[in-house]
Structure formats: C-alpha cells, structure tokens
C-alpha cells in the first residue's frame, strides 16, 4: 500500500517536472536554444485543405540545418553562405555579369549612436549593385543622407531590413563601431 502511494507521488513529481519543462520551453530565452518553426498548415497563410501542401518543403526541415540567429527566419543567412552550408545560384542566364565588391563604408559619422560600418561584401554576395544604386543610394561616399525615420518606414536600408533581412530591432548589428576608437583601417568614410 505504502509503496503504491510512493509510486503515485513519484509519478506526480514527474508530471510536475514535465509541466514545468513545457512552461519553461515557451519562454523566449529557451526559444533561442531550441529553434522551432510552424508547419505550413499552421502558419495562418497556407490553406490546410490544399492537397499539394504536403509536397512543399517545411521550414523546420530546411532551416534547422542552418546557422542559428535569434530573429527573422532564425537563420544567420550570411553565415550560412560564408560557411558554405548553402550555395544558392548567382544567375540563370549564362551571360549575366556577377558583380561583387569588398569595401566597407562608414556611416553615421556625426550621429550620437555608434558608427555604422556597412560591408559591401556581405551585401553583394546576395545582391547586385543595381538593387541599391542609384535609386536608393548614390555611389559616391558621403553623398547619401540616411535617416532612421525613413529606414523605419521601409525606405533606404528598410527596403530589405525588416522585411527579409534581419529586422531593425537589431540596432547593434549595423551600429557596430564604437566612436571612441580609431576608425577601422581600410573603411571609407561616408556621411
């Protein structure tokens, strides 16, 4: 009889532990450790009644293999490319010129927040020059008047950042260079 009561008590503690674990894994801190993606049928935009849905790749299946990030798709896309974890095609037509540039531009030199070191390399491995120049940004260093107000409204950097590339809540990833240190060598001062 007593051992039966003890077994019940052990079972109770086990359940308590499981319930607590379920609670804890719902917190954002744990979400960074264990990444989770909603299945397509439950993401609110795919039609669960579409019979073709089961033929589509699930985000969790593809993205769980890629380097982690706390925001967006929970994937650090730059790292995924740099580490060779993915090798997306650069062109479809054979005659397309693939253009890349390795130069850093320093921005926000007179602002209050840390300096922005804009890396052309990480941008041009994905994008072509024409995606940003000349309609979003002039190619001359110092010629662009950047505004957080416009960026937050989806203009300038905000065309991509906040929509498909890491969101604007990640201040320090762009404002990455402290003002009190000597400016990084090789970087071109912008505005």
């Amino acid at each position: 009889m007593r051992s039966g009561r003890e077994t019940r008590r052990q079972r109770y503690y086990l359940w308590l532990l499981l319930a607590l674990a379920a609670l804890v894994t719902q917190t954002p801190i744990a979400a960074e450790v264990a990444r989770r993606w909603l299945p397509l049928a439950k993401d609110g935009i795919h039609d669960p009644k579409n019979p073709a849905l089961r033929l589509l790749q699930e985000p969790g299946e593809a993205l769980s293999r890629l380097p982690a990030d706390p925001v967006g798709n929970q994937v650090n896309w730059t790292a995924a490319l740099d580490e060779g974890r993915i090798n997306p095609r650069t062109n479809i037509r054979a005659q397309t010129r693939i253009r890349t540039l390795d130069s850093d531009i320093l921005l926000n030199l007179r602002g209050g927040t840390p300096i922005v070191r804009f890396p052309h390399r990480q941008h041009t491995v994905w994008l072509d020059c024409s995606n940003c120049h000349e309609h979003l940004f002039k190619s001359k260093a110092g010629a662009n008047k950047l505004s957080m107000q416009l960026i937050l409204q989806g203009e300038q950097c905000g065309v991509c950042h906040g929509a498909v590339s890491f969101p604007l809540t990640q201040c320090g990833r762009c404002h990455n260079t402290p003002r009190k240190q000597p400016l990084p060598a090789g970087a071109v001062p912008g505005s």
Partner: protein
Amino acid sequence: MRTCLLSMTMLSAALALAAAPAQAEYGDVVFNQRSEKEGMRPVVFSHWFHRIRFRCKVCHDELGFKMRAGANDLRMVDIANGRFCGLCHNGDIAWGAERCDLCHSGRSGLISRIHGSNQTLGPGRW
C-alpha cells in the same frame, strides 16, 4: 490527486497553444491581386525557400522583380512565356506553371503584402 494531475496537464497544454500563435515565416509574401478574383487560391511566395537556392540578385536583377510588395503586376500569361517566375518555373529548373496548387497555396481572403515581418510599405510594424 488525479484532478490535480489533469489540471496541470491541461494548463501546460493551454500555455503551449497560447504561446504559439499562427504566424507566417519571416519574409513570406502573398500575391492576391488577381488570384481569388479568377477562382484560384492566393499565391504564397516564401523568401526562405528561394534564398536557400538562389541569391537575391537572380530574382531582383535578372528576373526584374521590384523590391516592394505589391509593386509587381504578375500575370499567368507572362509566367507561361518565361517571364518573372516563369524563368525558373518551367519544368526545367523548378516545377512548371501547370502545378497550380504548389504556388496557389494560400488561404482565402489574404491581403497582398509581406506577412510574417514588417511590410516595408511603412509605417513599420514589429
């Protein structure tokens, strides 16, 4: 004791459900300018799926897709003629345009815009 166990289990299940609301994946775009008017499901375009396979410059430079949700006026006739999605979705690089339900996979009533992240149509929401 049993009631206690049951309520604990139900509580944790409810919390788990409440903490995971339906949300589109970051960068998912819905095209529904014409789809539903013409009797098809809206199109769901997933940036994550495509950027594993193609760099941004392929669609936004070679294919000519504007970087603004709602700015691209897509018609099936163009796709069938190898323009826009049709440069790849031709049964050669990717599935052909006759596999309707693979792209026209959205729920009814969806608005054409970026879902799952800020709209880039400003003012931002996040």
